[in-house]
């Protein structure tokens, strides 16, 4: 380090080399980025225990979402999917981009829970039903000691409902992940449009 500092101080182009080194280093880090899009966790986790079924995905109960992409040009932010908005506008949905050919959304619960149902508000709830996703895969996941375990996997094919409710019966679940199959670009359902996701269950412990 001392030699580097001396070089910079004495060499007529020392500061230029330092600047270039910083820019190149920054550029390498920039090019190596593979960001995962996630929302922040805003709220406290629901108390233990709580009677009855609650929506554990809600941002008001400490839920957060991770997504593969979201439509940044139209700002269809993933947070809309867990905002518990009763009558959302067309803006207030999570939507992916066409380039994302394997879109997914993962709800992370604030507390470990027994998940009974997953309820979705798909495109048809507010828009043309032809945009409603028909094929997707719901997974209940549990994280233990740094590893993520699959608790249950439920494949859905040929869905025609705008707001389907899927019984799951996943025990001790930390995350619920839904992976979608999208149509080729330019066709309806080439992007995911999700107005709301609810993960209904009972809290059993800490994550």
């Amino acid at each position, binding site marked *: 380090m001392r030699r580097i500092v001396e070089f910079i101080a004495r060499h007529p182009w020392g500061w230029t080399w330092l600047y270039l080194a910083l820019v190149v280093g920054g550029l390498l*880090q*920039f090019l190596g980025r593979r960001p995962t*899009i996630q929302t*922040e966790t805003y*709220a*406290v986790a629901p108390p233990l225990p709580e009677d009855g079924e609650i929506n554990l995905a809600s941002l008001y109960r400490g839920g957060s979402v991770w997504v593969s*992409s979201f439509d*940044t040009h139209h700002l269809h932010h993933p947070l809309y999917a867990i905002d518990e*908005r009763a009558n959302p506008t067309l803006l*207030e949905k999570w939507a992916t981009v066409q380039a994302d050919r394997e879109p997914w959304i993962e709800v992370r619960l604030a507390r470990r829970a027994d998940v009974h149902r997953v309820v979705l508000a798909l495109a048809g709830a507010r828009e043309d039903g032809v945009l409603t996703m028909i094929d997707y895969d719901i997974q209940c996941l549990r994280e233990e000691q740094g590893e993520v375990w699959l608790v249950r996997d439920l494949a859905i094919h040929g869905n025609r409902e705008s707001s389907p409710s899927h019984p799951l019966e996943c025990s001790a679940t930390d995350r619920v992940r839904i992976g979608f199959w999208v149509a080729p670009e330019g066709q309806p359902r080439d992007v995911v449009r999700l107005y709301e996701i609810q993960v209904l269950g009972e809290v059993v412990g800490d994550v």
Partner: protein
Amino acid sequence: MCENRRNPHKQDYIGPASDNALTGGLVVSGPSGSRLVHLFRRSKPKEAMARSPDSGPISTGKEGRAECPVDPSQAGGRGLAIGLAAALLLGLAIRLVFFAIQRGMHHPDEVFQYLEPATWRIHGYGWLSWEFVEGARNWILPGFYGALMEVGSWAGLKGYSLYRFLQLHNVLVSLVLIPAAFRIGRAVGGKDGLGGLFAAFAVALCPYLAFFAPHTLSESAGLILTTWAYALWLEEVARPRGTGGSLAALPVGLLLGAAVVVRYSLVVFVPLVLIDYLLRRRFRLLGWSVLGMACAAAVVGLVDWLTWGEPFHSAMEYYRFNVVERGAEIYGVLPRGYYLNDVLIGRLGVGAVLLGLGMALFFWRHWRLIAAWVLPLIALSLMKHKEERFLLSIWPFLLISGVNGYLAFIRWLAERPWKHSPKTSSSLALCQRDSMIAHGGQTGDRQEEESTRNSQRGAMVSDSDPKKDHEGGESSSYLDGDRSVWFSGWGLRIGTGLVGLVLVAVLAFNLHGTSRLELDSFADLFQAQAWVSRQADATGVLLDEPLNINGGFTLLGRNLPFWRLQFDLVDNPVFNYLVAQQPNIVRALRRRRAFTELRQIGSAIVFRRNTGGIELSRQPELLP
């Protein structure tokens, strides 16, 4: 043996200017040679090693120097270095003032065309404009700023602090314009470097250029690249043929190509250089410059291929949208005279007349510099969509060509033969006793004798014709007979001082014109947006501005959903912060009990939702 060489400026060159620098000399050419006039003090004759392109170092003997064509890039010295350093310091000072004043942005493009895409690439969130959806922009400048954002993040900077870091970086980098201007001024203005100094000060102190220095616009980056490209080109033009290599044109091409890469419309600066090479039949230089441009083009082709899936995709989309479809006209159409009237004359005022007069003086000596700003002005004026920033790159050439004309006039006056005046001041117009190359003692002695006699007269000492020296003939004194230069030391000093005053006047008028720009636009909104982002309980924010007129996710530094404030979203509890500026919206929000007015930042008022909020994982406190 050095010999006079034909050069486009029809000026002879003089040997190493180290003595010039110590004494602040001005070189003037006479019919029989060049001589040095010192503006400040007498320089003692000293042995100097003259450099000849033909025969290497040549001793001048006891006094005088060799009159050899010299590469203008070699002229320099301590005085020039001090002047250049002063220009850099003053340039930094004025730029820092504009940096401190401007806390917002000049144009949304500086956020959404370069910073926001970089934010998106780094974090996965960012509001991408249509250009980055359709592929009408390349990723080179966003990549550069992304690299800087990574560097800033190493220091823990994010949001508004990161934004200011990028602006400060641009301020510092913009200082490289000053040595470029110096080199242009020296190349076109004369071998003594005074033209370079004037050019350096003109660019350093130009308020208009200082205003744009912090902004993360492609025009700011293009300004640096075009100015340096032209500096290297004009130095080559001024260089005697046979000195320097053809490879000197490679960086010219690279820089011009890079300028086009960062801003495609800067292609208007390319033809002049290529045509000049053609007219001078410098085909090797032409080839190297084209190669340089091709290298830059190859880079953008590769980057587009990697990012958009097709080589030169962004260039083709740009051409299709702007040239074929004229899509830019939806953003506004301005009359053809807008750039000349509203921008140049509007920002310079009477200074435009002063510059124009200077350019007209001896325009044939710096016609290239005049063409450097006139041709792009005409080309850009033909496009219907106009914005003031599009013309930024011409300003250094505009200033330098005007100032250079006055300096050329001063030199011309000094070169005129006048009747000898016995009262000609000798104390200040102390000339170095330059002589021709001392290849023969007899010749040198004769020169010594002439110099002594002329010094006693207090007149200018002339140099003999080097050509005659080369032939071994007698030296011909410029002071044969009773002729001598009347416009000597004091006259030159006053003349140079007047040129300085003209420059000061031009800059003063420009300051007035620049002050009519919005110096602090969007600052209140930016401050408010940044303040909201620092609040731990913020889950979303509505802004009283269109989506493309705010600081974006770059300024937020967080993955917070934001949207334009509209009342069908006001009821969504996700948007628990609102920033309003329009009085009617402020009044409407104040009437709503659901919101509490938290803070006023200039014209922006921040509201927070009272009900429908969330129980936070940590207690919120209003951070400053």
